[in-house]
C-alpha cells in the first residue's frame, strides 16, 4: 500500500547550489517545501573548484543577491581569499572572485536551510516524477514514499545516470563517489522530457604537505575586501586571507600526456558526452595547442581545516598512474601525493529549449528546472537558475505572473535566454561577452537593476528596499549638485588642474564636466569642491561611473529601448505557426518547436530571418488574421 504525503506544496529535487536557492526561495515566499538530496552531507557541496565568482560569474552572484538569493551572503561568511578581477579595466568587467572554505561553505548553507521556516531537508533518492494530463502531481522516492505536490523543481545537477571516469576505472557514481540517480531520467523521458548527455571534469586534490610552495609564485587577495552581498557590512569581511600559488606545466608534462593518450577515455572514445570547450582537460589543451610549451597551473586551498589543494588548470580523466607522473612533472609538485584523483563525469541533462523563460517545462505544467541539469556549468550559473526556478514555482502555486529577467536587465536574463532559445551542444558557461548590454549590466549596480524585482517577488524586505532608495537618492542628488556648481577659468583652478595632470579650463565648466575628463575623478577634484558631503565608497563609485561613462551608457540605453520594443510584443501561446502564410516552412517548424513567448525571443532563434519576424509581427497586429492564414486541408 502506498503512503501519500500531502504535507508539502512543492518539492525540490537536489540540494546543490541550484536546489538550495530554489528551496529557500520557495520557503521564503511562504510555500511549504521539501528539498530532497541523495546525501545530507552534500548540501551546497563544491565538487570542483574551491571558489565562487570570477569573470561574469561574480556578476551572477551579485544579481542572485540583489534578487534575494543566498549565495552571496554565504560566501561572504566562508571565504578565505577575495579578489576583484579586472580592476584595471572598465567597471563592466570588474568581477569579484572569492576562494571558499568548502566545508564551511557547505555547512553554513545547510544551517541556513535547516533554520528556514517552511523548509524540510530530506535524504532520499527520487525515482519517479508523477504527472497527470501534462501536469505535475508529485514525486516518488526509492523507498516507495509518494509526495503529492503542486510544483516540482528539478535541480539534479550532474547526478542523473552519472558515470565517473578515471582512465580505465569507470564507476556509475555521482561526483566524489556519491550515489548517482539512476531511475529518474527514465521517468522524466516518459513524462516527455528530452535528454542529452554532457561531460565535465575535475583535477586531482593534492596533499599540501607534499607540495613545495617555494617553487611557485604566491597570489594574494585584495585589501580591503569587497563583499559579494549588498546586505553584508564591509567591515565584517576584513580578515586574514590565505594565498594561492602559480606554477606551470612543461614539455615533460606534455610528453607524459602525449605518450598515454591511448589510455585517455576522452581520446579512446569511451566518453560519449560533450565537454565544454572553455574548460578543457589538460590532455585537451596539450592536443589542441601543441605549440604552447607551458600551461598555467594554480594551486588553491580546499579549505583552512584541510591539507587538500586543488590543481586548477589540470583537470583530467587519465588513469591514476599517468596522473601521478603528470602532476609530479610540474615544478613544486615533484613529491606530491594525490589525495583524490582527477576524473571526468558524464551525466544526463535536459535540452534547454523545452523550457519557458520562467524555467517551467513547456509541456509539463508545474515542473520547473534549474541548474547544471539545464545544460549549464558552474556553481553560479546553477544557483541563478535555481533561484529563478524556485521563485517561479512559487509564483505558479500562487497564481501570479512569473519573474522574467530579460537580456537588458541582467546576466541571469542572458543566461536563461541563451539556454532556452539556443540549441546548445556543450555545457554553457557565462561570459561577459555574451551580454549585449555589458556596460549597463555591471556587478556594481546589480542592486539598482534587480532589487526592486526581488522586492516585487517577495524576497527583498522593506528595509532592504528602503536602503536602495536612499542609496539612489544620494547618487542622484550628488550628481545634480555637481552639475550645478560651475567653476571659472581662474588662476587657482588652472593651477589645481595642472597639479593633478590635467589641463586648464578655457571657459567656465561644471564640476560634473570636469570629472568627465579621463584623467580626473570625483575623488581627485575634492580640493576644488570643499562643500561636498561625506559619501560612502559605493556611492562614489556609482557617481564616477555615471558621469565618466555617460556617453557610452546612453548609447547602450538607446539600444535597450529598441530591444524592449520587441520583447514587449507577446505571442499568444495557442498560435499555430504553420498556418501563417508567408513564413518559410523551415521557420514555421522551428517556431512551433520553440514556441517563443515574444517577438524578440523569436528573432533570436537560429534560422529565423528578419523577414519571418516581420511577417509574424504583422500577423499579430492584423485585425483580420485570416488574410494571412493558410487553410490546412
Amino acid at each position, binding site marked *: 500500500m502506498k503512503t501519500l504525503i500531502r504535507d508539502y506544496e512543492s518539492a525540490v529535487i537536489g540540494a546543490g547550489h541550484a536546489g538550495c536557492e530554489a528551496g529557500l526561495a520557495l520557503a521564503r515566499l511562504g510555500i511549504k517545501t521539501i528539498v530532497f538530496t541523495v546525501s545530507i552531507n552534500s548540501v551546497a557541496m563544491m565538487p570542483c573548484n574551491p571558489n565562487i565568482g570570477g569573470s561574469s560569474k561574480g556578476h551572477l552572484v551579485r544579481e542572485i543577491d540583489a534578487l534575494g538569493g543566498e549565495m552571496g551572503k554565504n560566501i561572504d561568511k566562508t571565504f578565505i581569499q577575495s579578489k576583484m578581477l579586472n580592476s584595471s*579595466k572598465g567597471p563592466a568587467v570588474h568581477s569579484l572572485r572569492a576562494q571558499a572554505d568548502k566545508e564551511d561553505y557547505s555547512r553554513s548553507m545547510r544551517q541556513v536551510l535547516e533554520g528556514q521556516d517552511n523548509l524540510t531537508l530530506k535524504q532520499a533518492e527520487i525515482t519517479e516524477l508523477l504527472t497527470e494530463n501534462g501536469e505535475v502531481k508529485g514525486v516518488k522516492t526509492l523507498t516507495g514514499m509518494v509526495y503529492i505536490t503542486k510544483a516540482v523543481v528539478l535541480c539534479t545537477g550532474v547526478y542523473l545516470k552519472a558515470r565517473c571516469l578515471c582512465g580505465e576505472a569507470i564507476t556509475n557514481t555521482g561526483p566524489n563517489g556519491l550515489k548517482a540517480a539512476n531511475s529518474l531520467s527514465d521517468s522524466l523521458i516518459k513524462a516527455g522530457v528530452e535528454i542529452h548527455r554532457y561531460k565535465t571534469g575535475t583535477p586531482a586534490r593534492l596533499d599540501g604537505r607534499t607540495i613545495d610552495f617555494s617553487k611557485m609564485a604566491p597570489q594574494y587577495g585584495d585589501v580591503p575586501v569587497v563583499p559579494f552581498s549588498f546586505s553584508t557590512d564591509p567591515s565584517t569581511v576584513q580578515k586574514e586571507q590565505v594565498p594561492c600559488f602559480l606554477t606551470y606545466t612543461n614539455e615533460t608534462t606534455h610528453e607524459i600526456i602525449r605518450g598515454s593518450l591511448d589510455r585517455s577515455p576522452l581520446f579512446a572514445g569511451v566518453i560519449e558526452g560533450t565537454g565544454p570547450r572553455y574548460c578543457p582537460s589538460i590532455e585537451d589543451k596539450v592536443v589542441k595547442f601543441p605549440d604552447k610549451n607551458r600551461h598555467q597551473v594554480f594551486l588553491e586551498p580546499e579549505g583552512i581545516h584541510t591539507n587538500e589543494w586543488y590543481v586548477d588548470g589540470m583537470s583530467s580523466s587519465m588513469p591514476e598512474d599517468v596522473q601521478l607522473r603528470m602532476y609530479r612533472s610540474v615544478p613544486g609538485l615533484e613529491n606530491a601525493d594525490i589525495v583524490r584523483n582527477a576524473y571526468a563525469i558524464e551525466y544526463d541533462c535536459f535540452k534547454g529549449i523545452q523550457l519557458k523563460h520562467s524555467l517551467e517545462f513547456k509541456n509539463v505544467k508545474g515542473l520547473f528546472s534549474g541548474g547544471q541539469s539545464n545544460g549549464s556549468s558552474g556553481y553560479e550559473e546553477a544557483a541563478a537558475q535555481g533561484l529563478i526556478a524556485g521563485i517561479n514555482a512559487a509564483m505558479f502555486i500562487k497564481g501570479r505572473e512569473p519573474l522574467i529577467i530579460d537580456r537588458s536587465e541582467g546576466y541571469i536574463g542572458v543566461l536563461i535566454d541563451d539556454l532556452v532559445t539556443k540549441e546548445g551542444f556543450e555545457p554553457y558557461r557565462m561570459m561577459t561577452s555574451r551580454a549585449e548590454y555589458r*556596460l549597463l549590466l555591471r556587478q556594481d549596480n546589480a542592486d539598482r537593476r534587480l532589487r526592486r524585482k526581488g522586492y516585487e517577488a517577495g524576497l527583498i524586505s522593506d528595509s532592504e528596499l528602503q536602503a536602495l532608495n536612499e542609496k539612489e537618492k544620494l547618487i542622484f542628488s550628488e550628481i545634480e549638485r555637481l552639475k550645478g556648481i560651475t567653476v571659472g577659468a581662474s588662476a587657482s583652478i588652472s593651477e589645481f588642474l595642472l597639479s593633478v595632470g590635467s589641463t586648464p579650463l578655457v571657459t567656465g565648466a561644471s564640476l560634473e564636466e570636469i570629472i568627465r575628463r579621463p584623467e580626473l575623478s570625483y575623488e581627485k577634484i575634492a580640493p576644488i569642491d570643499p562643500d561636498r558631503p561625506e559619501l560612502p565608497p559605493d556611492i562614489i563609485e556609482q557617481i564616477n561611473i555615471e558621469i565618466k561613462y555617460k556617453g557610452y551608457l546612453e548609447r547602450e540605453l538607446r539600444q535597450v529601448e529598441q530591444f524592449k520594443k520587441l520583447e514587449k510584443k507577446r505571442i499568444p501561446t495557442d498560435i499555430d505557426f504553420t498556418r501563417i502564410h508567408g513564413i518559410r516552412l523551415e521557420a514555421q517548424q522551428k517556431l512551433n518547436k520553440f514556441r517563443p513567448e515574444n517577438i524578440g525571443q523569436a528573432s533570436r532563434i537560429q534560422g529565423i530571418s528578419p*523577414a519571418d519576424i516581420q511577417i509574424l509581427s504583422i500577423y499579430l497586429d492584423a485585425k483580420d488574421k485570416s488574410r494571412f492564414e493558410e487553410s490546412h486541408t
Partner: protein
Amino acid sequence: MFMNRENDTIAAISTAPGRSGIGIIRISGSEALNIADGMIVTKSGKKLDIQGQPSHTVKYGFFSDGNEMIDEVLITVFRKPRSYTAEDTVEISCHGGSFILRRVLSHIIKNGARAAEPGEFTRRAFLNGRIDLTEAEAVMDVISSSNEFARKNAVTLLRGGLYKKIIILRDEIIHETAFLESALDDPEHYSLDGYPSQLRVKVSEMIGEIEELLSGADTGRILKSGIKTAIVGKPNVGKSSILNLLSGENRAIVTDIPGTTRDVLSSEVLIDGIPLILSDTAGIRETGDKVEKIGVERSRETIEKADLCLFTVDSSSEINSEDMEIFDHIMSLGKKCIVLLNKTDLRSDRDHHFNFSCPVIDFSVPEEMGLKELRETVSEMFLSEKLKTDEEIFVSCERQLTELRLSRDSLELVINSIDDNMTEDFFTSDLMDAYTHLGNVIGESTDEDLFDRIFSEFCMGK
C-alpha cells in the same frame, strides 16, 4: 541591426537610370517629411515648407544641399496611410541624370535616411497591409530576380582585390576581438598591458584600408564623382571643338566646374546617365618655350589622373611619330583609351586603316559624327550591360558603400575610445559592429545576411 530596420526611414532612386532625363527619389518612413524639409528651396533660396505640405500635392523648387542648388525639382508629398508604402512618403522628381540623382540621394542619406534594400518599399507596402500578398509576390519576384543578378554583379565588381581585402579585414577584426574577450574573461591568463596602443595602430591601418576601398570602389566613385576624361592630342587636332560639341549637346545640364585653368578646361556631361568630367588639355609636344612647357606638364598630370583618355588625331593628315608618342604615353600609364579620328569630314578616304590597340571612332564635329559610337563605347567600358539597365545594382552599391562607411565609423569609435584611455571592454562591441558592417558589404554577415534573408528567404507563400 535588424531591430532598427523595422521602422526607420528609407530612401532610394525609384526610376531606372540612364533611360530618361527625369528620375524620382522616394523617401519613406516616419522621418520622411522631416528629412526632406529644408532641402527644397525657391529660386531665391527661400526654404519651402515640406512639413506643412498637404498630402497628394506637388510643389516646384530647387534641391539644395545647403551650399549649392543641385537641381530643379518637383516635390510630391503623400501622407500615411495614403501612399505606396502606407508610410509618410516624399517623392522628388529630378531633371538631371543619374549623377544628379546620386548627389541628391547621397545628401538625403547624410541627413538621416537609410539606403533602401532592394524591394524594401514593396515589402513595407505589404507589411503595412497596403497591398495584398499576390500583388506583393509578383513585385518581389521581379525584384528578387534582378537582385540576384545585382548581387552577383556587385560581388564581381568587388573582386580584384576588394572582396579579398574585406575577408582579410574581417578576419583581423574577429581575431583581435576574440583575443580581447579572452583576456577580459581570463585576466590571469592573458595580459592586455600595452595592447591598446598596438591595437590602435592596427585599427588605424584598417581604417586606411577601408578609406582606400571607399575611394577605389569604381562604381561608387564613378556614380558619385564621374569618370575623369582627358581629351588628349597634339595641338590643333580639334580637341576644344570636341569638348564644345560634347558639352553643347548636353548644355541644359552642364555645370561648369569653377577653378578651371586657362590650359585645362573642364566640363561635366552625362552620357547615358554616366557622368563624364571632361578635361581639354593643352596640346602635347616637345617644346623649348617656357610657358608652353608648363601647359604641357599640366596636360601630362591630367592624363595621369584620368580614368579615360580620348586620344584625338587629325585624320585628314598623316599620323606621325609625335601622335604615336602621346598614344604610347597613354598606354604606358595603363589608361583606358578611345581613339577619335577627328576631322573625318575632311578626309577623302573614309575607310581608315590606322592600327590602335583600343576602340577607334570616326569623328567629325561639324557633321556631329561619332557621338553615338562614343556613347556606346564609354558605356561598354565602364558599365556592364547588366549594370546599365538594372536599377537595383545602384541601390546595392550605395548600400555597400554605406556599410563600408559604417564599418569605418565603428572603427573610428574604437580609436576614439583608445585615445580617451578607455579600456578594452568599452570598444570590443564597436569592433564587432565593424565586423558586421563589413560582412554586410559582401553578404557574409554573421546573423544579418541581408541578401539571403530578404531574397532567398523572403519567398512568401511558395
